[in-house]
């Protein structure tokens, strides 16, 4: 009985099925408001720079995590970056096979200390390399809604 017995299906035992009925609305915050507005309205990526630590945060923060200075200068950091590391995904979150593998890359935004994790597009997975130059491709302005998905993907320059 109990732990010494191999159990194949927990529904074979007396049990109760339930769920936790909660949903979330995540505000993007003070820095996030600037970040996503620039993406939506202007197709630009902005960061904040700590002059004291000489660190530029992308996405922007209202504070420097290193020295706790308040950061209020939002700077346009351009849309180009470099592939820092990447993976090619073959399965969906439920374990089913993807029809087409997707390429996920960590893109360091050039001239900053930060970056974004996003999809790579317009490239064959065999051709992806660490260190390659890429740029953000935005959805058409009328389709943008202030989301990270307003960037369709990064593509090789």
């Amino acid at each position, binding site marked *: 009985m109990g732990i010494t017995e191999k159990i194949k299906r927990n529904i074979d035992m007396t*049990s109760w099925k339930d769920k936790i009925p*909660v949903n*979330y609305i*995540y505000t993007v*915050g003070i820095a996030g408001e600037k970040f996503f507005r620039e993406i939506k309205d202007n197709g630009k990526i902005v960061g904040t720079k700590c002059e004291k630590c000489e660190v530029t945060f992308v996405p922007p923060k209202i504070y420097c995590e290193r*020295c*706790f200075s308040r950061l209020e200068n939002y700077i346009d950091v351009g849309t180009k970056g470099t592939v820092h590391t990447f993976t090619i995904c073959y399965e969906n979150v439920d374990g089913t096979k993807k029809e087409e593998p997707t390429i996920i890359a960590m893109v360091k935004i050039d001239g900053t200390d930060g970056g974004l994790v996003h999809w790579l597009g317009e490239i064959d997975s065999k051709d992806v390399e660490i260190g390659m130059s890429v740029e953000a491709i935005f959805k058409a302005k009328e389709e943008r809604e202030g989301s990270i998905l307003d960037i369709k993907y990064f593509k090789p320059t």
Partner: protein
Amino acid sequence: MGMRRVAIVGAGLTKFVRRAQETGKELAYEAAKMALDSCELTLEDVGCVSLGTAPDAFDGVHMKGEYLSDGAGGWRKPVMRPYVGGGTGVFNAIHGWFHVASGLFDICLVVAEEKMSSCYPHPAGAFLTIFDHTTEQPLKPNLIWIFALEMRRYMETYGISHRDIALVSVKNKKNAMDHPCAQIPQEITVDDVLNSEVLADPVHRLDISPTSDGAAALVLVAEHIAKKITDKPVWIDGVGWNVDTAYWATRDLCYPRYVEKAARMAYEMAGIKEPHKEIQVAEPYDPFDYKELHHMEGLLLCGKGEAPRLTAEGVTARDGNLPTCPSGGLLGVGNPIAASGVMKICEIFWQLRGEAGKRQVPGKPKVGLAQAWGDLMQVGTVIVMKV
């Protein structure tokens, strides 16, 4: 016991609001930055961070402590997250106290944050699984059941009326009118409380604190540091915490025995023999109006069933002999769970330093107490502070 004396030297508090635009990290930063600025320390001076925040399900961020850590000043520092549900705020300061009292760190930044507005339709939904998943969840419980059942036992045992209890809500919401961070400062009457919407009888809308977003922070330092940076250190001279059984049918619902045990631990450490005479200002945990009374009794600030009389006689008013929740408490200032416990410690800190402004209690108090409660409604956390 070979432990060092620990002082609070700085405090910071954001406004408590129903919905903040700021992310949790940004809220944590505002409180932590204010606490450090208040004692002219920088992040560089901080040895470690104690980060308190209640269920991950409120903010909707798993590993919320890790997520919040950079906003709380934890970048490349030793960070630990203590967690005892609603008791987290006061326990967070106790946890910070360990870090300094032990000799391991000289300066600990204590930060607490909660952002309950992320969760909808209501954060109470996140509480469903605190009920036993096979014997109680099938009954579709809501959180207020717990308090309604407990409040009724308290009323029945000591012959207390709802009118007696509602006085606490009236007092605390009025006290909050002098607090710049307060979410629902209000001037209301006992009848307003009794006539407000019934949620789970006998609990009405105005018996309850609101859900809130907010953050609070403290700077804890060792004695030799305290003396260098301020001539008004507030000493943490007693800490106590205790849990009762999680089987609530087995627990004493009319009296919080676990709060008494936590209080006795803190009093013994602080050398307090007659708490009802020695404690001069108190912030008992008041998420519901009856809980302030329940907790005053558990804290031995009066006899069992006597707290309503003290309230009616004005003893617990800001200018009474034993002011309770001069801040306005959770009922008036708001209840971002972990942050609200730290808010109470901030209030006692300001009261003992004579810096509470319009909220200042008379008589230059020298000994104060803050308490929180929570977990599965069976934890008590207590801190005794002195100047």
